[in-house]
C-alpha cells in the first residue's frame, strides 16, 4: 500500500517537474512493473533534486510571451487612460535611457550604424512632467485647502509625490510592462521617471490643461481612502495654537482636564478640553495628559485650518482651469492668523 501511495505521489511530482523545468522526457503511460517503478522513482528523485538545486524559476518579462503586440498594447493603453498622443510621443515616454544605450550597443555589435535609427529617450519629457506635477499638485492643494499653512501644503505634496506612491500608480495602470528598459523587474526610479514622462507627453500632445487633468485624476485621487488629517501634524501642537492666539491679540488658550478614567492603572484615559475666553473650543483624548493636550490642540487647529476631523470631505473634482489660474500661496505657519484667511 505504501509503495502505491509513494508511486502516486511521485507521479504527481513527475508531472509537475516536467511541466516546470525545461527537461524533456517522453512520458509513456503504462502499467509499471516493480523494476520500472523503481527506476521511475529514482528518476523522479533525481529530477526533484536538480530542480531544488536550480532554485526558483526566473520571472520572464511579459514581452517575451507569444501573445504580445507592443503596438496594440500602446494603443490600448492610450485608450485606457483616455488620452491621445501625437508623433509617437507615447512610445518616447516609455523609452528609458538604459534601453537606448542597450539598443545602440546591439546595433554596433551587428555592424549597423544607421544615423536615422537613433531612438529618443524620455528624459526631457520626464523633466517637463515632473515640473508640471509638482506645480499643479501644490496649486490644487492650495485651492482645495485655502486655510492650511503653507508648510502643511508642502508636506502633503511631498507625501503624494513620494517615489513609492508614484511608482505604485504606474504599476496599477498597467504601464509597468510597457516600459522599454534594460532592467527587469523595473526599479522604482524607472517607474517614477516614466510616470513623469507620461505626463510630459500628454502635455506635449494635448496641452497643459489635459496634463494637469491627468495629475488630478491619478495623483490627487490617490488621496482617497487615506487619512488626510494624519498628514497635518505640527511639531509642537499646543505651542502652535498658543502662538496663533497671541498673534491675534487674544488671551492664550487654557487647557483643562475634563475627565479621566482608571488613572492608577496601566490603561488610563484622559480627556483635555481647551477653552478660550471661557468658551469651549476643542477636546482631545489620550493615554497621558500630554497626549490628550496634543490631541485637543490638534482638534482646534484642524477646525481653524478648515480640515475638521471626520467631517471634512476633500474635493477631488475641482476645475483644472480654476486651479491653474490660482497663483496665491497659502499663509505660512509663522504668520498664520484667522484675519488673514477671512480677507481672502
Amino acid at each position, binding site marked *: 500500500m505504501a509503495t502505491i501511495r509513494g508511486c502516486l505521489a511521485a507521479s504527481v511530482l513527475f508531472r509537475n517537474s516536467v511541466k516546470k523545468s525545461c527537461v524533456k522526457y517522453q512520458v509513456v503511460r503504462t502499467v509499471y512493473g516493480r523494476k520500472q517503478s523503481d527506476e521511475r522513482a529514482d528518476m523522479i528523485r533525481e529530477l526533484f533534486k536538480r530542480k531544488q538545486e536550480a532554485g526558483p524559476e526566473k520571472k520572464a518579462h511579459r514581452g517575451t510571451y507569444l501573445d504580445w503586440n507592443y503596438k496594440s498594447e500602446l494603443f490600448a493603453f492610450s485608450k485606457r487612460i483616455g488620452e491621445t498622443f501625437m508623433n509617437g510621443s507615447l512610445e518616447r515616454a516609455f523609452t528609458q535611457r538604459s534601453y537606448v544605450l542597450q539598443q545602440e550597443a546591439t546595433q554596433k555589435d551587428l555592424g549597423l550604424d544607421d544615423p536615422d535609427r537613433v531612438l529618443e529617450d524620455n528624459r526631457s519629457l520626464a523633466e517637463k512632467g515632473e515640473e508640471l506635477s509638482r506645480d499643479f499638485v501644490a496649486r490644487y492643494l492650495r485651492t482645495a485647502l485655502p486655510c492650511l499653512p503653507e508648510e502643511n501644503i508642502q508636506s502633503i505634496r511631498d507625501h503624494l509625490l513620494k517615489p513609492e506612491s508614484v511608482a505604485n500608480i504606474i504599476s496599477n495602470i498597467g504601464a509597468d510592462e510597457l516600459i522599454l528598459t534594460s532592467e527587469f523587474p523595473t526599479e522604482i526610479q524607472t517607474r517614477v521617471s516614466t510616470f513623469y514622462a507620461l505626463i510630459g507627453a500628454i502635455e506635449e500632445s494635448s496641452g497643459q490643461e489635459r496634463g494637469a487633468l491627468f495629475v488630478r485624476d491619478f495623483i490627487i485621487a490617490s488621496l482617497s481612502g487615506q487619512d488626510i488629517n494624519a498628514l497635518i501634524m505640527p511639531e509642537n501642537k499646543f505651542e502652535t495654537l498658543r502662538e496663533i492666539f497671541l498673534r491675534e491679540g487674544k488671551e492664550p488658550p487654557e487647557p483643562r482636564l475634563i475627565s479621566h478614567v482608571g488613572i*492608577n492603572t496601566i490603561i488610563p*484615559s484622559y480627556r483635555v478640553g481647551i477653552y478660550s475666553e471661557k468658551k469651549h473650543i476643542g477636546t482631545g483624548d489620550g493615554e497621558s495628559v500630554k497626549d490628550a493636550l496634543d490631541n485637543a490642540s490638534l482638534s482646534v487647529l484642524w477646525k481653524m485650518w478648515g480640515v475638521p476631523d471626520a467631517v471634512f470631505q476633500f474635493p477631488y473634482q475641482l476645475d483644472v482651469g480654476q486651479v491653474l489660474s490660482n497663483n496665491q500661496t497659502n499663509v505660512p505657519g509663522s504668520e498664520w492668523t484667522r484675519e488673514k484667511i477671512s480677507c481672502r
Partner: protein
Amino acid sequence: MSSFRRAQQWATFARSWHLYDMKWQNPYESAYVIKKYLSGLWKPIYHPLNNCGDHVVVINSKEVALPGDDWYRRAYFHHRRYAGSKSWTLAWELHEADNTLIVKKAVYFALEKGLFRGNQMTRLHIFPDANIPPEIAGNITNQIRPLRPVPSKLEEVPDEVASQCPQLFDLPADFVEGSDLWGKPDPERKAQPIRTPYKPKGQEPW
C-alpha cells in the same frame, strides 16, 4: 490612522470604575445590576464578543442583607472530588468564614457562562467595609445607585428623636431590657439546600 483617531478609539474602549454600596442590599438582585457593568452591557459599543467590561468596586459586603430566612436556609454546595467530601455550607457560616464570598458567588452565578466570565470576575473588587485602598479609590469615577433604601437602626437614631416617638405596643411582661426580642437563628438547625441534588428514583445503591 492618525494619532488623534487612535486616541479616540482608546477613549471609547477605556475601562471605567464604578462603586456599589452593598449595605442592606439583596446580593442576588444586586448581582444582576453589577453584571450589567462588569460585562459592559450598558455601553452602546456592547457586543457579546467585545471585551468592553468595566471594573466594579463593591463596598460594605459585610452588611449584606439576605431575603427571608436565607441566612440559615441557603446552602452553598462544594465537593472536593474525594469520596464523601461533599459539603453544604449555610449562608451564615460562609459569611462568617469570609464576608465577601456571598457577593462574589452571587455575581459569579449572575454572569454569563463563557470564556469572558473569569476575566470579568477579576474586575470585581469586593471590600467588607467602606475602607478602599487609595490606589483603587483614586480610579473610581462613577457610583451605581443601590436597589433598596437603607433603613436606619434604632441605635443610629439620636436619643432626642427616639424619645419623641410614642410607644406603639406593650412589651411582654417577662421582657428583659437589653435582650434580643426575636433571638438568633438556631445554629443546630439542619441544612435545607434550596436546590436539592438530583437523585434518580429507584436507583439507591443500598
